[in-house]
């Protein structure tokens, strides 16, 4: 049958989607430009253009902000997109994250020589996905934003093709991420079946006008949406991918992933649950409560036993997700604005932290053991100060944005009567402060003459760290790791047989760890042949460690050379620290901004 009527296409207000257009279009332009310039210039041109594009989208977002504050929020493109303070704040946040990541990635790409401008292109497209999620007013659009965000991140995780861990992380992320996406889509289908719409406003409208006597379908859909979102924000029962992926991905990508994926997913999480299912809050609040509790505790608890700094930061990001969940659990405008503020503060802290980690990782991006940070303050005082500030901010120290962020979400929880949750959050913050401070103290402690790093630190914690925490996470599958990570008890049980049953092996392991530590240091200073002064098991281990390295000596870690700090990375770290500290001293503007943004929330 021939269509006789003309379809009335919706009017498109381009301001609503301009930031996304700038990022996506910019990515395509960058792709074209990068293929035209010479190979040597590619990274630099890519960085320059990416910074320009991110600045452009930041400018456009600010224009949106002016429009929204002046004339209020609006929906566009047949109500598929909503522009309000909330979405504009997400746009601004994501633009900042892209800008900083481009600066950090510049040094990384030049150092690793793993490719041209593809990383920046993928980051731009991925960031546009986060923006799409933040401004989505339709579950289908949320899903597409989620996929754009995630699929680009899968590729970014595999970006360093020389590290097999990178590809492995990407594959893990891809498989688990696809699975969670499928769960999410199923949730959308069930919600559509229950409410007859995928539009967030129409779902809210339907639920406000109808009382569902049999709401099993809706609740099932809601549960699946919750699972999908929880996976993306790395809340605890769905966090198994996080440590492996954060550790395996190139460090600048990890920072980007931590900041942007979390921001985009939480933006959609908050909007979907607060605007569409606000009326069902009695149903979902207890679930979020439980999620927040386990996320806070497991994140902080397992971060303590990590020896790899990237893994530690991964668990700390899980802990941060728990704090943001606190804001969602409050299920109020106040809670949403506190959650947004938290995300904003977190973005700068985490990108800055991973920028430092990326530098310390050196060529190959592999030197991430805690011992690498020993004596950093002596070698590079400024870098150590910056990292310490960022770590303390993550711990929630005074005069940083971290304190205000944590304080606000906790207050939001208290205001809403969830006092036990607030207490648990404070306790987990105290626990988290331990490992942040440990790393900070390590940087300021003098470098030892021998590799006896492990023994000095925390003898009580160490077996756990070795059995469950740090070692071999890639070989153990996610499920077992989950079992080990979900409850502390299995970890303890695991440790017991290892200590009792295999004592000699254990002792050998401990020594070989020390040897590996020393070997690391030796390799770092490019010593071709090194000599051993170790005992028999140690040298035996050393022989196994390196086929061509015959003998190992304990190098003076003070000799470990300074890590080169590219100017652009320094700028990025400086910006992160500046934002963290300045808005830590003067919290009002940013807090008001987040608060204002949620006031302009279009339900």
């Amino acid at each position: 049958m021939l269509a006789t009527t003309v379809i009335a296409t919706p009017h498109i207000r381009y301001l609503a989607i301009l930031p996304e257009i700038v990022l996506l279009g910019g990515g395509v332009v960058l792709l074209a430009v990068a293929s035209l310039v010479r190979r040597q210039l590619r990274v630099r041109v890519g960085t320059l253009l990416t910074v320009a594009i991110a600045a452009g989208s930041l400018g456009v977002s600010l224009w949106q902000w002016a429009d929204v504050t002046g004339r209020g929020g609006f929906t566009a493109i047949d109500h598929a997109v909503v522009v309000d303070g909330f979405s504009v704040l997400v746009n601004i946040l994501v633009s900042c994250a892209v800008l900083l990541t481009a600066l950090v990635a510049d040094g990384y790409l030049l150092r690793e020589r793993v490719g041209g401008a593809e990383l920046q292109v993928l980051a731009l497209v991925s960031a546009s996905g986060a923006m799409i999620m933040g401004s989505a007013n339709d579950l289908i659009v949320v899903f597409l934003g989620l996929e754009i965000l995630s699929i680009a991140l899968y590729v970014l995780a595999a970006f360093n093709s020389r590290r097999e861990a990178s590809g492995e992380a990407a594959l893990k992320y891809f498989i688990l991420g696809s699975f969670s996406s499928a769960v999410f889509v199923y949730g959308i289908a069930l919600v559509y079946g229950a409410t007859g719409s995928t539009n967030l406003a129409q779902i809210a409208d339907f639920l406000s006008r109808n009382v569902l006597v049999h709401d099993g379908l809706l609740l099932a859909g809601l549960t699946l949406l919750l699972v999908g979102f929880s996976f993306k924000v790395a809340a605890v029962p769905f966090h198994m991918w996080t440590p492996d992926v954060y550790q395996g991905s190139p460090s600048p990508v990890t920072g980007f992933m931590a900041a942007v994926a979390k921001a985009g997913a939480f933006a959609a999480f908050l909007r979907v649950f607060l605007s569409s299912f606000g009326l069902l809050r009695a149903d979902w609040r207890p679930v979020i409560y439980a999620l927040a509790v386990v996320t806070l505790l497991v994140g902080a608890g397992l971060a303590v036993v990590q020896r790899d700094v990237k893994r530690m930061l991964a668990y700390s990001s899980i802990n941060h997700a728990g704090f943001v969940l606190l804001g969602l659990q409050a299920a109020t405008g106040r809670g949403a604005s506190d959650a947004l503020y938290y995300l904003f503060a977190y973005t700068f802290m985490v990108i800055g932290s991973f920028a430092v980690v990326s530098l310390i990782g050196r060529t190959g991006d592999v030197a991430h053991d805690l011992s690498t940070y020993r004596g950093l303050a002596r070698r590079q005082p400024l870098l150590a100060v910056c990292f310490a500030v960022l770590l303390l901010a993550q711990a929630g120290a005074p005069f940083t944005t971290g304190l205000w962020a944590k304080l606000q979400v906790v207050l939001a929880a208290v205001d809403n009567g969830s006092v036990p949750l607030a207490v648990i959050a404070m306790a987990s913050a105290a626990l988290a402060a331990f490992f942040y401070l440990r790393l900070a103290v390590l940087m300021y402690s003098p470098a030892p003459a021998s590799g006896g790093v492990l023994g000095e630190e925390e003898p009580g914690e160490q077996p756990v760290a070795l059995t469950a925490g740090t070692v071999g996470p890639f070989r153990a599958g996610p499920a077992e790791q989950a079992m080990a990570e979900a409850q502390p008890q299995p970890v303890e049980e695991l440790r017991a047989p290892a200590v009792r049953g295999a004592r000699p092996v254990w002792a050998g392991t401990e020594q070989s760890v020390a040897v590996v530590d020393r070997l690391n240091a030796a390799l770092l200073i490019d010593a071709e042949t090194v000599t051993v002064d170790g005992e028999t098991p140690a040298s035996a281990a050393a022989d196994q460690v390196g086929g061509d390295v015959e003998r190992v000596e304990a190098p003076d870690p003070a000799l470990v050379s300074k890590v080169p700090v590219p100017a652009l990375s320094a700028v990025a770290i400086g910006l992160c620290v500046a934002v963290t500290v300045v808005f830590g001293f003067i919290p009002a503007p940013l807090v008001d901004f987040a608060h204002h943004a949620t006031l302009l929330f279009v339900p």
Partner: protein
Amino acid sequence: MTPLLLASTRATIPDLITFVVCAAVVLTGALGVVMSRNSVHAALSLVLTLFGVAVLFIEQDAQFLAAVQVIVYAGAIVVLFLFVIMFLGVDREENVAAEPLKGQRPLALVLVVIAATGIIFLAATSHWVTGAHAVAGSTTAGGHSNTYLLGRSVFTTYLWAFEITAGLLVIAVVGAVVLARRPSQVHEEPRDARPAAPGAGGPGDAAVASPPVAAAVAAGTGASGSTTDDGERRPVPAGVTGRAEDGMDERVTGS
């Protein structure tokens, strides 16, 4: 409120029979995808599932979607799957018997039973259908063909969703290039050849040390290969839990 199968006002006995038969076909295909040892058989089972879904689409008066389902999914996408499987070597045996995690399968079985019981219980005891009408309307509303209605949806309600799939295509192109790129083409670095890279983090050094995956067509395949390698070459002495042993192995050999 009507039960699930009779939700449509037009539901008749032939409808019911069609649904039951198609559901059986879809489920059989899905089980085949998961349980086939041979990856080609798995891909072909997928055709069965997609075909069953296509028939269900026709049952719902969505003839255009049914055609698309057969042409695009059963035709193009499964052929692409088969192409990739053949390309990577159909004879490669994946050792599915090797279980990296003890108790994983029984646990999975228990969880599946719980989930299935929950779904069947919900379906049997509660009324799933709320009676809300879809915003998109019936597939033949107003005497229009469903291609017309589909087109209208795509260019009105779902215009933004339709357009942003372009972002996915950009990612697909760039991602394919990034993943297919060989590291050696970019830059040769002697550091790579070293057996133990710095970093006692664990997985990092393990990964660097293992032999580079030959001809990394895509990083995904490369990584999966290495995982199985790891699983196979790792001896598990008795008396030590798998996980603890992981650590030992890695530390002692330094990989």
